[in-house]
């Protein structure tokens, strides 16, 4: 069945996004520094744009679809866990902060790898980083596109292939022609829709459930543990929850798609505003969407597949046009994550691999055509794999977040703040972090009851420091 009144707001949303892509393309053609414009939007982002693009890149399908589904089954404990993400709004920007902004300008860095390259002066660091970015983020893009296509499929009744093509064409067109500027501007629209959608749905759910007291009473009667911080099955132990904080609180700094945004803003003032707006935005979305999942339980009981909770609830408690707006939110979340990843993988191939190893003397025109082609080919490859996602990509996607964090976190942080950090430390911490992360995940994900990412991050910290100190005689302390 096709719900037209739900589809109309979605279509309008797609048209506006196309428009932004074409407008940004004009800027790309007018700009005199193609690389900086296409991959960083000319470092011109103000506070609101920066906040929105950080938030929208960070908030993905799991914040709107997966997360509320788990909250439906786990209760308020899952909302508590989700609130560990609040620091994502301010911590990254404060830690990377002005030092990263100054140094990336001094190094004329366009990508995170540019920064690592100038800082550690090592081809091994470039290649290791480029491979982990391409492998993990390609997998993670595929998973997000599958999610986006499934969502369109379930909302419109179109079949999976058509849904995937609609989704893919929209994203590819505006990213390819508009570059980072189009990504950031559409993120601002998408981020706003995410916040507005969350608030509308939260209010409507509370009303449909007959008020908060009423909803809490029903939850209490069904299972009192829905109201406890330990989760309905008692699995959210204090140790697990607090180590989960590491994945989010510390680790987000190591995500290249987030870090690259921390070098793209205009001035100090943009940074200050972005920290405040971003924290409010992330707080609202994470709190709202996960709480909605819990409150949905008495309102739409008996949903067995977690991913259906949010769409079912929306169609149940809202009139069609509003439902369309709210359902544009998860779509916006998926698009805004995918577009950032596509941009990042493309910049890694063009800037970090092609310009470093294949053709350092490329002319502006060559770089331009290569960038368009690389972005297009990667985009189409993702579509191809998303048609029938192979097992190994799904498998890799599970590691994407933790893997990138284990690989990059310390190289970025020490690279900025510790002058004794050297390439040997960086390489060994990347290798140890990644291998340890993947093997712990395979062998025993909850080792000692902690989150999988905890040990790799701790161990790669120690390895980084020890190896850097032990190899001091081989490299000079870095002067920024």
């Amino acid at each position, binding site marked *: 069945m096709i719900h037209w009144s739900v589809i109309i707001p979605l279509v309008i949303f797609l048209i506006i996004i196309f428009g932004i892509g074409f407008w940004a393309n004009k800027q790309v053609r007018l700009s005199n520094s193609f690389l900086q414009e296409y991959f960083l939007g000319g470092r011109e982002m103000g506070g609101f744009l920066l906040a929105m693009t950080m938030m929208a890149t960070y908030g993905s399908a799991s914040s709107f679809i997966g997360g509320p589904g788990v909250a439906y089954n786990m209760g*308020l404990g899952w*909302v*508590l866990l989700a*609130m*560990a993400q*609040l*620091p994502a709004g*301010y*911590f990254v920007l*404060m*830690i990377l*902060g*002005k*030092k990263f*902004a*100054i140094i990336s*300008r*001094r190094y004329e860095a366009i990508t995170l790898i540019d920064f690592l390259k100038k800082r550690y002066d090592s081809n091994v660091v470039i290649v290791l980083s480029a491979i982990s970015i391409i492998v993990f983020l390609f997998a993670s893009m595929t998973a997000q596109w599958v999610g986006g296509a499934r969502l369109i499929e379930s909302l419109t009744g179109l079949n999976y292939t058509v849904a995937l093509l609609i989704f893919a064409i929209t994203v590819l067109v505006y990213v390819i022609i508009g570059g980072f500027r189009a990504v950031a501007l559409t993120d601002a629209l998408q981020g706003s829709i995410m916040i507005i959608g969350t608030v509308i749905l939260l209010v409507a759910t509370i009303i449909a459930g007959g*008020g*908060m*007291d009423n*909803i*809490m009473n029903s939850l*209490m009667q069904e299972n*009192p*543990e829905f*109201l*406890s*911080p*330990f989760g309905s099955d008692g699995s959210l132990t*204090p140790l697990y*929850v*607090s180590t989960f*904080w590491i994945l989010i*609180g510390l680790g987000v700094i190591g995500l290249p798609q987030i870090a690259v945004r921390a070098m793209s803003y205009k*001035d*100090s*003032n943009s*940074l*200050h505003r972005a*920290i*405040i707006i971003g*924290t*409010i935005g992330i*707080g609202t979305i994470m*709190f709202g969407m996960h709480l909605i999942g819990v409150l949905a339980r008495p309102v739409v009981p008996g949903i067995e597949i977690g991913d259906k909770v949010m769409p079912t609830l929306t169609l149940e408690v809202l009139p069609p046009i509003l439902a369309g707006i709210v359902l544009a939110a998860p779509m916006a979340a998926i698009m805004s994550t995918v577009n950032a990843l596509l941009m990042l993988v493309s910049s890694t191939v063009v800037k970090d691999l092609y310009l470093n190893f294949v053709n350092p003397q490329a002319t502006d025109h060559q770089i331009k055509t290569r960038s368009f082609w690389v972005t297009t080919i990667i985009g189409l490859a993702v579509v191809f794999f998303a048609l029938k996602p192979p097992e190994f990509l799904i498998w890799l996607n599970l590691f994407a977040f933790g893997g990138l964090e284990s690989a990059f976190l310390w190289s970025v942080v020490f690279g900025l*703040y510790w002058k004794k950090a050297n390439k040997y430390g960086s390489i060994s911490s990347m290798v140890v972090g990644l291998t340890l992360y993947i093997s712990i995940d395979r062998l025993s994900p909850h080792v000692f009851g902690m989150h999988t990412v905890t040990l790799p991050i701790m161990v790669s910290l120690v390895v980084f420091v020890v190896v850097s100190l032990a190899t001091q005689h081989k490299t000079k302390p870095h002067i*920024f």
Partner: protein
Amino acid sequence: MQDKRFKIANREAFIGVALVIINFAIWYGFAYGLGSGNPSEYEFVFGFPAWFFYSCIAGTIFMIILIWISIKIFFKEIPFDEEEDKQ
């Protein structure tokens, strides 16, 4: 030669670390401090269990205000480009 701007940047990064520790303490402390008992004996604030209200709602609002104040008081405007640096 140590760039003066880095001193400011380093201090602001420390403020970030301090804020995240305060954030963690409030979030974790209220949740497991007030929420460890039997759910049927929970107190409720504005319809929510007290642990949830203080940890996830009041705690979040408090953090946002604290971040806002720290930025207004401690965060300095500095130029990022090299040329302006030399003036």
